[in-house]
């Protein structure tokens, strides 16, 4: 377990370094704002985002009562936008968690054991990466039925090979290093070598993968929802856009469209910026250049 602790320390060092990167800082600031919205959405909202309103309140432009206006069922756009952040974070982090855990385990096993096993696993990942991921997600989501759980499942099925490949190539170089060799020479088991020696060293890489996968997962949820495969019992940014689009009201009611669009852009850009910063920081020489 001391290995895991060391890994967590690495993550903390990492976050500190992130503060020195301009793009990363912007990303982190947006991320914190979104995090506050996610946590405090019930207090920031004006009404229940799913509660339909009175007939005369259908599609009203922004005013004092409805800050961002209303949709075709007279529901409050401001409250919907806030709750959309919750769905984005829920789907984003859960899918990223599942994807990175699966991908890391597969990558560790393939990289560590090598040989035939590695070859078979890599063929499988190659095959998955060759599939048209959006049509694949659409087919799965359409068959499994629209729900948050299924969307998370679909995203994980499609994205794990990307993480597996990244982790594997890191493991390949790690397992040749002296500290692994010395553990092996005193008789450490495969399990101890994988989880005690190698895994702590891929924790920063896993962190980078989580950031990337959150971005991809938020995108995937949004596009699936926009195409009509979102969970109809919830409100997400993609679902808001899907309703506006299906009603043919995109240009009639821009107040309905602009909030989810802006939120999606900010969220995805925030994670992209953090991701860029993370990969910059991990390049050798970044710390040295800044005297850290």
């Amino acid at each position: 377990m001391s290995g895991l602790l060391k890994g967590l320390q690495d993550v903390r060092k990492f976050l500190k370094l992130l503060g020195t990167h301009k793009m990363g800082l912007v990303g982190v600031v947006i991320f914190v704002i979104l995090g506050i919205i996610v946590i405090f959405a019930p207090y920031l909202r004006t009404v229940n985002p799913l509660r339909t309103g009175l007939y005369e309140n259908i599609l009203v432009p922004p005013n004092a009562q409805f800050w961002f206006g209303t949709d075709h069922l007279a529901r409050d756009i401001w409250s919907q936008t806030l709750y959309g952040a919750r769905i984005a974070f829920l789907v984003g982090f859960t899918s990223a968690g599942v994807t990175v855990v699966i991908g890391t385990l597969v990558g560790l096993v393939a990289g560590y054991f090598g040989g035939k096993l590695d070859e078979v696993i890599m063929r499988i990942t190659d095959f998955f990466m060759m599939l048209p991921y959006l049509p694949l997600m659409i087919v799965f989501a359409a068959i499994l039925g629209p729900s948050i759980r299924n969307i998370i499942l679909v995203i994980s099925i499609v994205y794990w090979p990307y993480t597996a490949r990244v982790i594997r190539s890191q493991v390949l170089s790690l397992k040749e290093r002296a500290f692994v060799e010395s553990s092996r020479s005193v008789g450490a088991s495969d399990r101890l070598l994988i989880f005690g020696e190698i895994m702590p060293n891929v924790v920063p890489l896993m962190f980078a993968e989580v950031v990337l996968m959150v971005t991809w997962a938020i995108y995937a949820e949004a596009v699936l929802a926009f195409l009509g495969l979102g969970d109809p019992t919830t409100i997400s940014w993609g679902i808001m856009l899907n309703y506006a689009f299906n009603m043919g009201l995109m240009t009639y009611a821009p107040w309905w469209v602009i909030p989810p669009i802006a939120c999606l852009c900010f969220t995805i850009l925030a994670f992209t910026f953090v991701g860029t910063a993370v990969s910059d920081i991990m390049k050798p020489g970044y710390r040295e250049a800044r005297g850290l």
Partner: protein
Amino acid sequence: MALKGFAGFAIRKISAALLTIFVIICVNFFIFRVIPGDPVRLMFGDPRVSPQKIQEMYVRFGLTGTLWDQFVAYLNRLFLYGDLGYSFARKAPVLEVIASKVPQTLMLVITALIIAVALGTLLGAIAGWKTGTKFDSIIITISLTFYSIPTFVMGIIMLLIFGLYLGIFPIGGMVTIGAGLTGFAYVRDVLWHMFLPCGAIVVWYIGEYVIVTRNSMQDVLDQDYITSARAKGIKESAILRRHALRNAILPVVTITGVNVAFAVAGVIEAETVFGWPGIGRLVFSSVMARDYPVLQGLFLVFAVAIVTANLVVDLIYGYIDPRIKVGGGQ
């Protein structure tokens, strides 16, 4: 000897691609069999269909017998008759439905690709050439932004800006309905409609080409032959054209193939937003209609397109790059 090396390389690549396509075909079969529920029921989705009709459909779609019998029947229909199934929503064979939409998509994608490759490599090369300058940092930030924003989001933004506020481009469809245009006027009308969907795809593509070309350019500029060209006193513009650009282009060829998968997603999104009548829009309308046979067929078409594109790029690359030719012979 070199040709023999390349031939060996080509044969290996082609057989790997064929194997991948075969596995995809199998996956396509099993995806729709392992799911809970009944494929015929799924296809109909209407509980009022009579049991006789259902039984008829079981026979018609080879859903009788063991899973293995079904699989053999499926392969038979696919390979002998090119039968991808029947769309109940559209009352037509799936192959026909898809084939009728392919030309519109190809027109859109090829136009977008040409524009994006030309502009993207140019901007990326200049950015790489001038690494660290203001121009470079502006270009790279914009590219990264465009590259990360989903195509459908970008499409909706363009729809609002151009369609609503500026009102200069039509926001949907491929032709002005009821205008009855012919000849040159028709072509102009189509191009006019193509502007926004094409633009949404181009914006994403360009970002990608800029980033890749820039990185490749930076790598090339570090090479010894550039230094020696400079030492010889060759003019900077000549070094850029004759030495740097040529070598920096190679990775651009690779990404075109590798990222067809991403392009497929972009096309689905752009066509949906702008109502462009291609196979991307067909994905959306099939989802809406829960038209599983068409979705299944589209999945296969996209997968084969991706594998083929990758194969073509691999072969071109193998032909250009002498190291692969030699390696392939061993």
